[in-house]
């Protein structure tokens, strides 16, 4: 009988610790995003055709010129990309170099998108089969990467660049610049 009681109290204790674990996990913010394993790695090799007549195409060599830059993944079909467009322009006004890859897009659609929502991009490559998107470890659109002057990815921003993300990205660019 005594053994039984001890066993039962042990079960109570196990249940209690499980509830504590549940409570702890509930209080944790749930991170739904999948971080890219490419952060900290060299940017994958690519050489993309221009997505749009007024800007040159984009290759991985463009990130190895000693200057840190942002790499934005977007699509003219992507509604959140329209929402983040003003923040990208603000970043450009603050001195950031922004390259872009247009995913699964058509030239006339890209042109219409850029004329409607602004064009803060220095170079725009086209990735018609999302090949580079996958190589970068991006899980969706929009995403923005910080690449240092040697072509190493130092930071990944998933989702829309909101107002509050501008100083964060500028700081990441500064760190990437001073690090290399």
């Amino acid at each position, binding site marked *: *009988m005594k053994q039984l*009681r001890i066993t039962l109290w042990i079960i109570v204790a196990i*249940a209690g610790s499980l*509830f504590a*674990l*549940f409570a*702890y*996990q*509930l209080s944790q913010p749930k991170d739904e995003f999948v971080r890219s394993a490419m952060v900290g790695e060299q940017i994958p090799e690519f050489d993309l055709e221009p997505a749009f007549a007024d800007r040159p195409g984009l290759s991985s060599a463009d990130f190895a010129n000693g200057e840190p830059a942002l790499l934005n993944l977007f699509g003219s079909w992507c509604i959140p990309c329209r929402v983040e467009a003003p923040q990208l322009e603000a970043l450009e006004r603050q001195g950031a170099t922004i390259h872009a890859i247009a995913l699964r897009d058509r030239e006339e659609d890209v042109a219409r998108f850029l004329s409607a929502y602004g064009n803060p991009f220095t170079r725009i490559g086209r990735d018609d089969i999302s090949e580079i998107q996958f190589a970068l470890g991006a899980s969706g659109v929009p995403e923005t990467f910080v690449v240092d002057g040697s072509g190493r990815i130092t930071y990944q921003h998933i989702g829309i660049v909101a107002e509050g993300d501008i100083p964060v990205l500028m700081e990441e660019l500064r760190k990437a610049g001073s690090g290399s």
Partner: protein
Amino acid sequence: MIPEIGLAALWLAAALALLQLFAGLVGSRTETAEIAALARPAAALQAFLCTVAFGALLYAFAVTDLSVKLVATNSHSMKPMIFKLSGAWGNHEGSMLLWITVMALAGGAIALIERRLPEKTMMATLAAQAFVGLGFYAFLLLSSNPFERLVEIPPEGNGLNPLLQDVGLAFHPPTLYIGYVGLSIAFSFALAALLTRNVTPDFARVMRPWVLAAWIFLTVGITAGSYWAYYELGWGGWWFWDPVENASLMPWLAATALLHSASVLAARDALRTWTIMLGVIAFSMSMVGTFLVRSGILTSVHAFAVDPQRGSFILALLVLYIGGALVLFALRANTIAEGERFSALSREGALVVNNIGLTAILGVVLIGTLYPLFTEAFDVRVSVGPPYFNPVSAIFFLPMMLVLMVGPLLRWRNDRAGRLTKPLAIVGVVMVAVLACSLFFDNIGLLPFLGLVLAAGLAVASFAPLFGRALGRTPLTIWGMCIAHFGIAVAIFGMSADTAFQEERLVAANIGDVIEVGPWTGQLQTVNAVAGPNWTAMQANLLMSYEGGAAQEARPQSRNFWTPTMQTSEVALLTRWNGQLYVAVGNQGDDGRWQLRLWWKPFVTFIWYGGLLIALGGTLSLVGRVVGDVRRRRQQASGEKVDEELPEGALA
């Protein structure tokens, strides 16, 4: 107006639950208290009011009343009627209302029907049922009101997740919920037995049919859910060890163990503490499962709305009910007198092995499901899948199958091994024969191989209890046991055969291309667009023939729903007695060829036939018991000689 009636009914029902709790508690102490007479009517009226509330919600969905927030966010005027109705429980608020309705109906049923237990224990049971109910009323009314109105009425609703727009699935959640929540009766009986210190064989006999009824629904629900995942998700698998699937499996395992241990308690007055424990655990697993699914703390393919606040509420209920019940149990355990003793080689002994096995598998599944949650607390992300669940649960399951062959043949209390030589020799010969046949096939994995051999042995052994009986006079309960055990053999055979012999082809086909998979050959004839009420689809038309026989049409679709926007795969299934051809169509490649995925799955349907046989066995046992009880009660009433209690050979 109708939604307000529903809401009012719900509040009234909650008030009645409070009355029932109070009346039941008083009644459990003093039998003569007048207020105790209110407990049963309160439970019955509560069942009625919850039915009214649920009816009001169904009505709001049927007429697509978009002023109700739940309808606007989960329904759409262009959906077929059946999916409008199933939309009522295809969301958080509605499913919690369904939960509380089932709970109230079950409570009402025991209040009206059950009169075999001492009145004090019955009153305590109703009090416990009301106590559990109150928590869920509070949850529903305070944080998940299904009847909330919108100030601005939207012109159109959001629609229902297309994966859920399926006739089979429309009835899947209600079936599972009846099972989950039906187990609350066992929980309440167990608490009442502890509170009134009344753990007797009578208590087990009274509890059993209720557990059995809930268990039948759980069995059907899990079987249906597995078939749904099989043909709707388009991956060709029938069990994914997904947290949501595990959430339904764990109460089933506990309820199965409970049925068997209650049988020992009823027949032999042994395993008292253990039976109470399982009564508490079975419903606790229902609640833990609901918490895991509804709180979103585990990532699952079943994307339910994630809401941490609701998660906290359910967690509070878990702590209160499970924690409370366990503490009460620990405090009262020493007041349960030890039951009868028995030898290892006896019916009880075999049932104890069954119980240990089922509980161990329950532990395996629970640990595997919660392990990612545990490691995430230390920032390590893991996912636990079939490589863990399959072998580790098999370690316990396969020996259980062996015991299952012998157990039903054993006598209660004590038996001689020598008595069983003949039936076991027959079973042994069958298993050796299958073992020999299996050796002709290459590349059968160890688990499917063992599964095939044991399934064959069990299929024969499950009917061994009928040997030497006059079949016409064999009680339904014995038939039920044999059929349920045979169902396990059938399901294991289906799982093993599918795993061992399935063939898969992934092809990119042009129109007119010849396609082969296993014994099937055929041709992709055309691909055309088709439209449904709320979707359009590309449909591939294939003509397939089995071993050169008559050609049959297979028309898999890749569907695009527009409310909400989503792509789903509608597979085509060609069913033969010996298996299924499973065809799914994907997208068109850049070169114009269509991606087709074909599986030949030998005997895969036996998995679900097995599940249904298990449920059928349970139903036969239940009918046998209830008919016997009714007959005895009538004889008692008319003063005739009362029949003996049915022999305690089987469950229920």
